């Protein structure tokens, strides 16, 4: 029997399958590329055939695309990323006190005490300190993002890069590149700028007590981990499944939701991988709000609508 967790984030979509012992059996990490539905289908087509629908006991969704994903797969729990990350970290180690999480478009800090979330903060408006910014810079420097961290470690003298704003950071980097600084120094400078920005902005005024977990896609970057340890003066732990902690957490939450309900899962099955989904968007002109409505069609039949303020569209479709 298995539990399925799906985290639809801005940059990646992560799918995990947990066994009864809450161990990760399958882990799929795909780039969302702005197409959440197709990405989930792609993940399901990888699982289909290897697992039967009946073997799935519960399914949960999280991440910025959790609503749509939850509807698509028939989720038992649809939960925000903060709670999902906290649950996964606590499952691994009950003594974790601080979670630093940096994803594609969000960065957050979660403070825990005695196994509950006591405080959290997220980046407000700017994505300067997040994964997609690093991605963009890696692309610009033509260095694969996977090697970014190793480059940073090679540097002897970091260059100071402005970290507060993505636009400033990029022009600062370009100016320093033009002066001839080697890529490794610039990348280390960038890593330190990201950490500085995170600690001064997202984590400002928050207590950062050990044990500290570093989660999210950016945790794969050894350069950033090292910069965190240097800035905090203490060990930062990157869990083995740091990049899919959200999906692990929401799989656990879904399991508990089904158990609490004493019911069966609402999972719609892996067959949705074969359906043809089309999403249209249009502007509703019925009032001056001019909501942007997203209409999802499965094999030509409208199954869901999102995006309206009044509920006229989203409540219209009879949901199975």
């Amino acid at each position: 029997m298995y539990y399925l967790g799906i985290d639809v984030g801005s940059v990646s979509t992560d799918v995990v399958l947990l066994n009864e012992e809450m161990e990760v059996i399958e882990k799929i990490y795909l780039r969302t590329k702005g197409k959440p539905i197709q990405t989930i289908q792609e993940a399901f087509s990888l699982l289909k055939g290897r697992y039967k629908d009946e073997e799935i006991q519960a399914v949960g969704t999280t991440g910025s695309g959790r609503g749509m994903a939850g509807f698509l797969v028939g989720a038992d729990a649809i939960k925000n990323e903060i709670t999902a990350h906290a649950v996964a970290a606590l499952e691994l180690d009950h003594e974790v006190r601080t979670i630093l999480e940096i994803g594609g478009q969000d960065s957050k800090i979660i403070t825990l005490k005695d196994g509950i979330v006591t405080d959290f903060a997220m980046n407000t408006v700017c994505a300067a300190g997040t994964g997609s910014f690093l991605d963009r810079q890696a692309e610009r420097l033509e260095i694969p993002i996977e090697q970014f961290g190793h480059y940073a470690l090679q540097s002897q003298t970091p260059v100071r890069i402005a970290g507060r704003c993505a636009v400033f950071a990029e022009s600062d980097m370009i100016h320093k590149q033009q002066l001839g600084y080697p890529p490794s120094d610039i990348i280390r400078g960038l890593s330190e700028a990201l950490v500085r920005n995170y600690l001064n902005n997202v984590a400002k005024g928050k207590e950062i007590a050990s044990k500290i977990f570093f989660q999210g896609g950016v945790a794969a970057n050894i350069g950033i981990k090292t910069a965190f340890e240097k800035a905090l003066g203490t060990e930062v732990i990157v869990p083995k499944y740091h990049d899919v902690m959200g999906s692990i957490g929401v799989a656990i939450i879904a399991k508990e939701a089904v158990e609490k309900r004493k019911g069966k899962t609402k999972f719609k099955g892996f067959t949705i991988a074969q359906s043809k989904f089309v999403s249209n968007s249009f502007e509703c002109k019925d009032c001056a709000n001019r909501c942007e409505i997203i209409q999802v069609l499965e094999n030509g039949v409208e199954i869901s609508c999102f995006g309206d303020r009044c509920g006229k569209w989203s409540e219209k479709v009879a949901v199975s």
Partner: protein
Amino acid sequence: MKVGIPKGLLYWKYGVFMEVFFAQLGCEVIVSRNTNKELLNLGVKQAVDETCVPIKIFHGHVASLKDQCDLLVIPRVMRMAEREYICPKFCGLPEMIKNSISDLPMITEEPIYAQNLDQLYKSMEVFGRKVTKDKRKIKEAFHKAWKAYEESFCGIYDVGYKMRVALLGHPYNVQDSFLNMNIVEKLHDLEVGVMTEEVVPRREVNAYANQLYKRLFWTFARHCYGSGMYFAKNQFVDGIIYLSAFACGIDSVVIELLKEGIGHFPLLVLKMDEQTGEGGLNTRIEAFIDMIERRKWYESNVSSSRECVHGS
């Protein structure tokens, strides 16, 4: 005479006063519609780029009204309490409007001093004379308007909820449901009640504000800080959500003061701008409410039992 009143900024607090005043003078009062995407787009197009989104929205309201009325109320609010100030954008509002929007009808450009009734009357008399020469009529309209204002209550005081949060911030951020993406309804959907600063007695607001090491001379900063402290210190709510417009200078100060003042009391700051995607907002609200729920649960049965961690 047709008088247009834009439904933005301080309308959310003193709209009733203006409406009754001009209606009593025999004017036809036209209030702009609730904020919507059209008005937002209109405002963003007209207003200077660097200003905050509530000011841009106000521009939208003005632009939507300008061809329907003979007199447009663009209040230049200078002062609302003795020895206090309000955001400079209010003092310069008519200039911003005049220089950004063309073909305006007559507007109320004269300053409004509202630190006491006498001052307010003097300010309003100037407006009244644009409509009538009859001083007695103006006085009468003023008193009726003031009475209507005093009898009105624009705040929110929810009862019967297991959990309640205080919604703080400049009144237009808290009251304009388009700007704040209908946060009150979102909270109600999560079975959370709402309280706003209007609930807190003025003497309490002042008492907390006066405890600061330096006199807080921004009127809205006083209200937000004082009421936030009152809510937190008396455990009148379970958490505070602070709605702040991106780039608001006053909020940047108040939020830091409030964070320090309330200590570990749950506080969530939401930044608002032109975005209409609700995902980010929903995530933050949901996680905040989750956190409060678990904290409450934990405080009422202090236990390190593993089960407390999870749940749906």
